[in-house]
């Protein structure tokens, strides 16, 4: 996929670029609003990662301008403004997603992937990773043909892991997406629920699909994934 980063902070742009290139995307960087708008208009990108606070033309103006010509181009906004009204303004102006600084690269990567998937593929009702399948409509999970009973929270956690198969997910990302709560490092709820899931999804099966990523969080084995 081809991605445009419009970000005036050279260090941050460089880290994001390195990360996305390591995931086999072709990445261009613009450090100024007008330059970003011109590049986005001229070339065919699959995703634009757009900072709001830019020299020259500000990010919101770039976004509005893009929406007039490229209504379907996915745009993810980066900003240091976290207030509800800031988010509403961005989404109302046509942003597809919104990430508040300071953010984790893993979070940006997961969201970029979700936007790219949304724009290229129809949403699938059944997710599969190797011999594990999760039916989002029927709310059923099976591994190697054997039905697995999960609680609502376990189901949501497994769905998030499978949607991001092959990606490292931090505990903060998991608790914010699955529990819809602000991450609190004092709670071990993620580790406990991962253990519940492992007992049901991995115990007695081979290979193990849920892996601990030391110092980060967890990752679902991606080989054979269809999500």
């Amino acid at each position, binding site marked *: 996929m081809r991605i445009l980063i419009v970000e005036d902070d050279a260090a941050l742009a460089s880290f994001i670029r390195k990360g996305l290139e390591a995931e086999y995307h072709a990445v261009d960087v613009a450090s100024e609003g007008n330059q970003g708008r011109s590049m986005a208009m001229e070339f065919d990108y699959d995703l634009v990662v757009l900072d709001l606070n830019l020299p020259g033309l500000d990010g919101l103006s770039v976004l509005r301008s893009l929406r007039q010509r490229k209504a379907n181009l996915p745009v993810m906004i980066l900003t240091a403004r976290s207030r509800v009204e800031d988010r509403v303004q961005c989404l109302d102006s046509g942003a597809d997603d919104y990430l508040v600084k300071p953010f984790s690269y893993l979070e940006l990567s997961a969201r970029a992937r979700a936007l790219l998937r949304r724009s290229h593929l129809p949403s699938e009702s059944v997710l599969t990773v190797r011999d594990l399948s999760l039916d989002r409509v029927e709310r059923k999970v099976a591994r190697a043909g054997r039905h697995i009973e999960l609680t609502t929270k376990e189901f949501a956690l497994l769905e998030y892991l499978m949607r991001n198969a092959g990606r490292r997910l931090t505990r903060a990302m998991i608790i914010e997406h699955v529990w819809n709560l602000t991450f609190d490092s*004092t709670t071990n709820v993620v580790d406990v629920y991962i253990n519940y899931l492992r007992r049901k999804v991995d115990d007695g099966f081979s290979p193990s699909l849920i892996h601990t990523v030391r110092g980060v969080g967890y990752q679902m084995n991606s080989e054979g994934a269809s999500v």
Partner: protein
Amino acid sequence: MSATPRSFPQLPRTPDVLDELLHSLSQPLTSLLCSLELSLEQVAERQHESVAAALQQTERVVGMVRLMQEYLDAGQPGPEPCPEARARAMRCVIDDVIEELSSIAAVRRVRLLLAGTCSVRLPVAESRLRLALQYLIAPMIEAQPAEGKVMLLLGEGPAGTVLRGEGERRSRDLPGATSTVCRVKLAIARRVFESAGASLVLDDGDFEGFVLSIPRSN
């Protein structure tokens, strides 16, 4: 020699200064966080532990910065056009928050119970209301020892609506509820509720419970 009066540009208010500082801090902090995350995969095994430790410390700083942002945001008047008539019923939002927190309570073997009902709507953005309720109720769960109980009682009277939170027992060995982070979270909750015209009273400095009073609107 007497000093000649000069006019200075108007200095920004304290919240604006803090907002600007946080804004400036968030940029390099994002770079640092992204850099450490990307480095973790590439460093040699003997350096892995140091980078992982640096990453954890950075994540703690990020957590603090987010709390500061939330504290400042909570004090902003009128978070969005959200008149009382359009706001989601408080009871529904409480139910949502309790559902999310119940799994955390279950992991700690704490019972989380809600009784009573209300029809009040707070003129505050739902995301902000959820955050305030989370920051109010979660510390009570954390303060309970295993097999403890947290009761939430909702009631409506002539003066308005009251949500009362009570911990059945409290373990003095659990530091969670009295930490600085917890106090800041409670302060955020108080600011959110006060911005919507409600008042929050904590039972004591060690946080054994709370009373949230929402006056009847005219």
